[in-house]
């Protein structure tokens, strides 16, 4: 029987810790166990044999850290490791060799600097070698980051046909180091099609019991539990684990009762632990998890379950009808887009829709960039919204979690394009009820299309629970029955236990006071059983409808959610007397953004925009800047004033003739290898608000990119930042390349380790110790 048949036929046993045994046999601290596959193959085989004799079925080859980032002789090590394990298995029935894959030791972007595709490539190499050497399955284990886990699973799926088992290392509190809880991991991993899911390492069996029980609430595939032998402690000068084999095996019985069917051990466990576990659990009832039929979307921290309470999907990341958003997309202004996400997050939405389609931009590149950047600042699950299938696939691939996909429809072409992507990467899909014949006029017609889509999805192995049907809200102004039809469709779908979603605001197209109509329709739809809605969460009418509905339908214990919402709705001035000023310069000096904006608008009625900039905004900012230089104002105040000046600039900008608004271009960047950019951001804020056109290349920027930006923009000044001594060589390299390629350009440098002498040594024109100093230097250059 193969390993898949084995795990479906009874409790399957995995081996225990390797390090503990090997160290007792002479493996020195600091020496990689993987090297023993070549230097001490007999001992490796002996270790496997002891576990097999103890009753283990799955032997993890000694390849935990075997990847090209750590070993030059990767093929040799992995091939030997699999051969050692296979050789040990000879004579043992129902024994299987797992290619063991642990973390790379690097943190993936955006928390670290390892690009997702590079991680996939690193794992892929290990997988190809292991599969070729004859492994029976892939075991991805001890992963404490969901994103690295996804990279490893994709690598395994794309490079072999072996079953894939995954165990994550949960910390105290039942979450991975980067934040994912069991529901999030189950959603993502089942979406990716892994064969068994679970946990190992980090904790002892009793703590793991809770995580196993939580996993069992969501998992439909077999659950793996491989705990440590408790926590390490010192006894008689020796490091030992505090759970002995008796206690361990007792708790493993509880773990089996909680739903685990594949069990073993991790750090500190020995063959004795496995033997006792086998003895005590082998006659326990074997119960595979039932199919849960939950509709889960997830991020890198949590899952959102659709079908319980009505879920809000924020619609604001979408250029349709938004001039500023379109401008941000064309200018590659990610901050604007990210702020749309962050501000919706704060309203309490559960999911963010992401649509960045504009005919004139590269949607695939923009969508992946926005998805990745949003995930660096918001832990909400995302709804990927595009009609471009290439963009959709790229975004689904790099998405950290299980996304909501917007959308598929009943046309054969649409289903043939979208379903294979969902099968590969996982995801819940918004299914729009239109097909080759258009949108049916009747509720029944729309339900029939929904059922056609569900049936087609089944052929790909995508369950009904993954499909969320949008029966389409059409403008009631052009068809007075349209709302009735849509609501009836929601009712029928709900009765058939099919999940539903609506883009609510279409209903009011062509009507005045649209928000009022939208809110009433939204309430009616929720009453019909609507599971989720794409709405504008900044619309108070919509949020009132949602909070009211939650309170009135018993979904809001003690109405706490509604009460908090209502108290936040009280206008700010009744809560607190905000600081007020009556002149623009005072607003800037005090750092009052809103006042600066409104006062600048007011002033535009009588004063020319350039006069406002030259005579009010810049002098006011200078007052604060001089205070900062004299050390009587500190950094936050300087920045608040700069931001207030920025708002005043926004107000006058539209009145300035094109080409006269900026003093000159400056390229700034944090150098290659450096991921800390707060200092550079402070400099950008100041320079921008002194009227310069700042081309901010971001962080970890290669020298060639800086040169390219200078050539393209013709900027006469470049600012480079580096935080640590380790990245100053990259700064020096950038300066050398700039000198060669753009010799007329002036270069200023800054950063925590930088000094006047250091700056001169690496060939910079000027060392600027702080942001005001950078402004002064820019004034010199552009004077």
């Amino acid at each position: 029987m193969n390993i898949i048949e084995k795990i479906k036929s009874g409790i399957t046993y995995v081996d225990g810790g390797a390090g503990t045994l090997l160290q007792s046999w002479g493996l020195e601290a600091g020496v990689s166990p993987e090297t023993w596959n070549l230097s001490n193959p007999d001992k490796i085989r002996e270790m496997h044999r002891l576990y097999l004799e103890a009753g283990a079925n799955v032997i993890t080859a000694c390849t935990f850290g075997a990847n090209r980032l750590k070993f030059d002789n990767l093929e040799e090590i992995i091939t030997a490791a699999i051969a050692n394990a296979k050789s040990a298995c000879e004579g043992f029935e129902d024994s299987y060799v797992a290619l063991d894959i642990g973390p790379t030791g690097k943190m993936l972007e955006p928390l670290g600097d390892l690009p997702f595709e590079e991680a996939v490539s690193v794992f892929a190499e290990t997988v190809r070698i292991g599969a070729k050497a004859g492994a029976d399955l892939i075991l991805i284990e001890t992963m404490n980051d969901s994103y690295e886990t996804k990279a490893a699973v994709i690598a395994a799926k794309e490079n072999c046909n072996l079953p894939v088992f995954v165990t994550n290392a949960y910390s105290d509190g039942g979450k991975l180091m980067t934040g994912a809880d069991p529901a999030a991991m189950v959603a993502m991993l089942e979406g990716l099609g892994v064969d068994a899911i679970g946990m190992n390492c980090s904790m002892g069996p009793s703590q793991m019991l809770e995580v196993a029980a939580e996993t069992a609430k969501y998992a439909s595939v077999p659950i793996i539990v491989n705990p440590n032998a408790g926590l390490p402690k010192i006894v008689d000068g020796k490091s030992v684990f505090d759970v002995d084999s008796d206690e361990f095996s007792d708790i493993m019985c509880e773990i089996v009762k909680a739903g685990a069917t594949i069990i073993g051990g991790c750090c500190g466990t020995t063959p004795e632990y496995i033997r006792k576990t086998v003895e005590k659990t082998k006659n326990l009832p074997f119960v595979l998890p039932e199919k849960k039929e939950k509709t889960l979307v997830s991020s890198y921290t949590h899952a959102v379950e659709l079908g319980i309470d009505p879920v809000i999907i924020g619609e604001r990341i979408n250029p349709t009808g938004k001039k500023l958003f379109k401008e941000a997309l064309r200018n590659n202004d990610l901050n604007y887009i990210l702020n749309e996400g962050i501000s919706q997050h704060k309203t309490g939405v559960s999911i963010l829709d992401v649509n960045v389609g504009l005919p004139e931009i590269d949607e695939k590149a923009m969508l992946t960039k926005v998805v990745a950047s949003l995930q660096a600042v918001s832990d909400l699950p995302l709804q990927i919204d595009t009609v471009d299938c290439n963009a959709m696939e790229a975004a689904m691939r790099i998405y950290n979690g299980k996304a909501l996909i917007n959308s598929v429809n009943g046309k054969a072409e649409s289903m043939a394009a979208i379903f294979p992507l969902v099968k590969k990467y996982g995801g819940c899909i918004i299914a729009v009820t239109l097909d080759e014949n258009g949108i049916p006029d009747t509720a029944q017609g729309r339900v029939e299309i929904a059922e056609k889509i569900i049936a087609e999805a089944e052929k790909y192995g995508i369950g009904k629970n993954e499909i969320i049907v949008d029966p389409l809200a059409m403008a009631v102004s052009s068809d007075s029955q349209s709302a009735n039809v849509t609501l009836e469709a929601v009712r029928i779908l709900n009765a058939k236990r099919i999940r539903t979603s609506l883009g609510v605001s279409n209903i009011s197209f062509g009507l005045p006071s649209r928000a009022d109509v939208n809110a009433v329709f939204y309430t009616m739809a929720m009453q019909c059983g609507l599971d989720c809605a794409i709405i504008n969460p900044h619309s108070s009418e919509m949020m009132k409808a949602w909070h009211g509905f939650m309170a009135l339908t018993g979904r809001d214990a003690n109405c706490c959610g509604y009460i908090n919402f209502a108290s936040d709705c009280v206008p700010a001035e009744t809560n607190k007397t905000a600081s007020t000023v009556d002149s623009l310069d005072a607003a800037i000096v005090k750092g009052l953004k809103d006042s600066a904006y409104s006062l600048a608008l007011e002033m535009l009625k009588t004063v020319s925009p350039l006069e406002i900039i030259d005579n009010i905004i810049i002098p006011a900012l200078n007052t604060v800047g001089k205070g900062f230089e004299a050390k009587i104002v500190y950094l936050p105040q300087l920045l608040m004033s700069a931001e207030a000046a920025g708002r005043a600039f926004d107000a006058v900008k539209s009145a300035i003739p094109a080409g006269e608004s900026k003093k000159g271009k400056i390229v700034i960047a944090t150098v290659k290898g450096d991921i800390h950019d707060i200092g550079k951001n402070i400099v950008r804020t100041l320079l921008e608000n002194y009227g310069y056109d700042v081309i901010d290349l971001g962080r970890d920027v290669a020298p060639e990119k800086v040169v390219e930006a200078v050539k393209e923009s013709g900027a006469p000044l470049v600012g480079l930042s580096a935080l640590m001594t380790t990245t100053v060589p990259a700064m020096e390299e950038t300066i050398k390349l700039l000198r060669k390629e753009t010799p007329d350009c002036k270069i200023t440098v800054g950063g925590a380790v930088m000094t006047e002498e250091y700056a001169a040594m690496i060939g910079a024109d000027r060392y600027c110790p702080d942001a005001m100093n950078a402004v002064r230097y820019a004034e010199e250059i552009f004077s």
Partner: protein
Amino acid sequence: MIKILTATPSDFEIPQRLIDEYLGYYGVESNSEILDLIEKCKKEVLACVEYKACISKVNCCKTENGFLCLDFMESESKSLAGNLKDCNTAFVFAATTGASLHRLIERNGIVSPVYGVVTDSIGSAAIEAFCDYINKSVGDVDFLRPRFSPGYGDLSLDCQQKILDFLSAGKHIGLALTNGGMLTPVKSVTAIIGLGKEKNKCKSKKGCMVCDRKNCPYS
């Protein structure tokens, strides 16, 4: 043996003095908007900070060629050797405030630079305060040497990887090093604390005081 130490915000305060220091405060009065912002950011930081550290006790000795030898590395650093003079043992640790705080700093910096700077400074103060907490937890502070981190004096940042590997810091507390030699999540620290045989006479000094940088705002 590697000991895992965790702490919650209620275990110790983040001193306001440290926050002010990282904000470049020169002893002037701040306005109420900034004080409100600091309070708001502090609440956000405390809501998401996850203090975690892994610590191990190591032997200190000298090699034949006179270099300092800890269990997991040899070092030519004169500054560290000076710091650990007369110590037979030392604690080596890696500490972090966690991935959620890293993301909060990113997020707030996107919303507004001042929001980002204040959050970042509170994050810096938080990890510093956590390191002080670790100091107190490892042993009698009277016998401990000033905490010494890679990057202080002539101790190269290169040894950070050795510290992380030795402590399995990636596995235990989710801490890693970028190719540029930076710890991630941000607001993390690696350090060595010497354990002297006699009461430490220079305990008030920071380890970083061995640095010869002339323009350090914190000196």
